[in-house]
């Protein structure tokens, strides 16, 4: 009799704690291959996580994967350990997250840089990097005295070509004769983490006459900014606001607000207002933008600012449509 009573108590206890556990909000983040502190993409997510944790006091579990197999393994382990929400960073996580989301319909999932999945418990964010790149393309063309500007990308993948294509269109719109030099730092993931090579590429572009160089190369881009500062030329930062990395030598930065997406998802999860679907963040949604602060105030002429702002308004109003490279794997020439 006694033992049965104990069993029932134990079961009730398990049930009660189980329910309390289900109500608790336990978020987790799985970063993409590479470093969490890349001064750019992953770090943007981390900034969003930090902001959320500081405001709410809720700890966010984190995992950095190092190979393909770990993606799904890490997500499953996080869910099995009680995570009620998993945010995956980067398009490479798409298939893994899709599989895990299907197996755990009562948990919430979100992913950044993906738009092609479809699950009722999965939120997706994509950014219109081509719109932001268009704006900095205009800025580059107007700031250039030589009529030549440069672009240094990271790994040569469609996403980075999208940055380049938007930049090209923006630069052309401001100066039809502009020459845009292009280079990628590599074909392996090391391309995101090779500032030396990126600075070599930027220097070679400057030797060929480019006086403004835009980078979309993760941590490697620091090399581009350094090279521009050394040569007294201008660089354009990416993802996070990098104007302050070399004040006076960074014309502006193309902001991609992954921190906003992360923070928004976490807050919605906590408030119980999580929704699925695709969130496409462009200029109109403040998902991308160009950076103006005290570090680059002296570099931006009134004429330049006016031209960029005008284009921004036109894009938001729909009067200018920037072609998205990834829509047809092609860049209009």
């Amino acid at each position: 009799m006694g033992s049965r009573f104990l069993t029932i108590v134990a079961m009730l206890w398990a049930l009660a704690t189980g329910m309390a556990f289900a109500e608790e909000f336990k978020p987790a983040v799985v970063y993409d291959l590479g470093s969490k502190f890349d001064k750019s993409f992953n770090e943007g997510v981390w900034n969003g996580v930090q902001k959320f944790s500081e405001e709410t006091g809720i700890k966010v579990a984190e995992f950095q994967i190092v190979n393909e197999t770990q993606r799904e393994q890490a997500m499953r382990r996080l869910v099995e350990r009680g995570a009620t929400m998993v945010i995956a960073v980067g398009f490479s996580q798409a298939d893994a997250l899709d599989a895990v989301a299907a197996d755990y319909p009562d948990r919430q999932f979100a992913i950044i840089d993906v738009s092609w999945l479809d699950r009722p418990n999965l939120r997706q964010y994509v950014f219109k990097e081509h719109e932001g790149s268009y704006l900095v393309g205009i800025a580059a063309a107007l700031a250039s005295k030589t009529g030549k500007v440069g672009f240094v990308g990271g790994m040569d993948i469609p996403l980075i070509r999208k940055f380049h294509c938007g930049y090209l269109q923006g630069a052309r719109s401001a100066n039809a004769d502009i020459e845009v030099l292009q280079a990628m730092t590599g074909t392996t993931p090391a391309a995101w983490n090779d500032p030396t090579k990126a600075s070599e590429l930027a220097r070679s572009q400057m030797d060929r006459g480019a006086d403004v160089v835009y980078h979309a190369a993760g941590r490697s881009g620091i090399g581009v900014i350094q090279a521009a500062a050394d040569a007294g030329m201008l660089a354009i930062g990416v993802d996070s606001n990098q104007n302050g990395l070399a004040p006076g030598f960074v014309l502006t930065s193309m902001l991609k607000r992954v921190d906003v997406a992360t923070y928004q998802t976490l807050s919605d999860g906590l408030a119980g207002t999580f929704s699925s679907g695709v969130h496409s963040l462009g200029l109109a949604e403040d998902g991308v933008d160009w950076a103006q602060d005290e570090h680059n105030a002296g570099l931006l002429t009134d004429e330049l600012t006016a031209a960029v702002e005008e284009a921004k308004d036109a894009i938001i109003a729909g009067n200018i449509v920037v072609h998205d490279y990834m829509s047809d794997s092609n860049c209009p020439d």
Partner: protein
Amino acid sequence: MTNLPRWFDIGVLPLVNLALALLATAVVVALVGEDPLEVLAVLLQGAFAPSSLGYTLYYATNFIFTGLAAAIAFQARLFNIGAEGQALLGGLGVALACLSLETALPGLIVTLVAIAGAASFGAAWAAVPGWLQAYRGSHVVITTIMFNFLASGLMVWLLSGPIMRAGQGSPQTRLFGETVRLPALHDIAHTLGFEVARSPLNLSFVFALLASTAVWVLIWRTKFGYALRAIGHGEEAARYAGIPVRRVVVAVMAISGALAGCMALNEVLGAQHKLVLNFSAGYGFTGIAVALMGRNHPLGILAAGLLFGALFQGGAELNFEFETITHELTLVMQGLVILFSGALAYMFTPWLARLLLTQRPDHG
């Protein structure tokens, strides 16, 4: 070098070196403020608990293939550091076979073609540096590492263009059909009537065991293996003895490349079921350490592959369990194991030999 009994070189020395590596790791772990014994317990639990063992063996499969690839080349004193690129090409062979044939032919035949594709693409990618070494004197170390970059360049071009899955932005192919996959071990076990935990472990593990046996037979029980080892001991002497050194060098490199290419069976045909960029993830390079630690012997490589699989899987569990133990710290741990059992492999040999020989005076 002292003449130590073979059981000592293969059996005792690696264990001593492993113990020292673990000791050094314990110091590092203690320095970051965790209890080394607790960490070791989590590591072992994370690697060998029933739910994780599949992952450990899955990683081990990669290391066994790349370890064998490095070892067979080492036996002929060839330094093949191109396993990374050869594995990528192997993956390409698998993907091309699956994507082009899966609707036209029955699944089993396509799978067999894919296996042949992995081996032959890997072999071809390694045979070129082998040929350049044998006939043109370009050092294989330089050319194989160059070929790694060529391979990753080729993969980026193919995966972000010609064979990229339509309608999404990720550089990868579409998923292969259900019929052209190597069965996962948990599915095989399910069919046989018992349940094991879900893991990416698949039939490739069995292939890795078969490959180990085949490599042993090839090196120590065939005429070709004799020629290969003769070249490893002295190329001039081998040539003088009438061994066609050049042809054997090309063949050894091709076999080495085929083994590296077979790593793609595990990753591409067994686990991912699609070709993704950089699935080789450094396994090719770690294979060199595995071969060093396994003393270029298939049995040693099986053990070393298992050890590295356990470090990989157990190390990932540490990241979940301890906040202070990040991925970088598990890298340090793996680095120490490689340092002690690879680079410093023979550091303790003289002392251990003296210890051994004083106890067995008949060897003195």
